[in-house]
């Protein structure tokens, strides 16, 4: 899975293979257990999840080869 912007800074990593999770919610729970600070940040305002490069709202079931990314609020331009 992938982290960007301040989420990557908080976690101290940008990319990692993590234990397969059945759903996004499970994955977040797992991340929160291992990196509590990241877990808190993932529930922060404006953080979005993308699964296989599609931004998703709410929970979603995952497969072992799902590519999950967490995106903090965007600031381009």
């Amino acid at each position, binding site marked *: 899975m992938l982290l*960007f912007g*301040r989420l990557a800074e908080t976690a101290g990593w940008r990319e990692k293979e993590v234990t397969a999770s059945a759903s996004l919610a499970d994955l977040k729970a797992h991340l929160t257990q291992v990196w509590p600070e990241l877990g808190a940040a993932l529930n922060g305002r404006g953080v979005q999840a993308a699964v296989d490069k599609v931004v998703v709202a709410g929970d979603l079931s995952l497969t072992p080869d799902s590519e999950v990314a967490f995106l903090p609020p965007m600031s381009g331009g």
Partner: protein
Amino acid sequence: MRASLVTAPFDPGAALSAFAADRSRTGAVASFVGIARGDPGSRLELDAWPEFTLGRIEALIDDARRRFGLDDVAVIHRIGRIEAGEAIVLVMTAAAHRRAALEACAYLMDHLKSRAPLWKKEYAADGTSRWVEPTAEDERGLDRWDA
């Protein structure tokens, strides 16, 4: 490929020269350059997920092209380290009508600010830093296009 992400400084004028050439069917070319503000020694770092970011910017370009009836659009966006005074982003539009070309630049910039997967960190000359997040004004800028 009308969207590109570049890691080195680029010259907006050189890009405009190329874009504005052979437009005798078009008539109107507008552009917007966003430049890194700040004291000498300050800089930005722009994080991106290039293959995803490009796709999202291309989708914005398609939206703008349809909405404003554009003949052509190009977006060049820096990523990585950007020094004060360097161009961060260049948007160029070509259309039959001047208003469409200019409005499309505003539309694209408003959307790039908070709808393009880019993450900007400002480093002041004294070494302090902060992540930039969309402001209430940025969100109001977007509301304008929902009418």
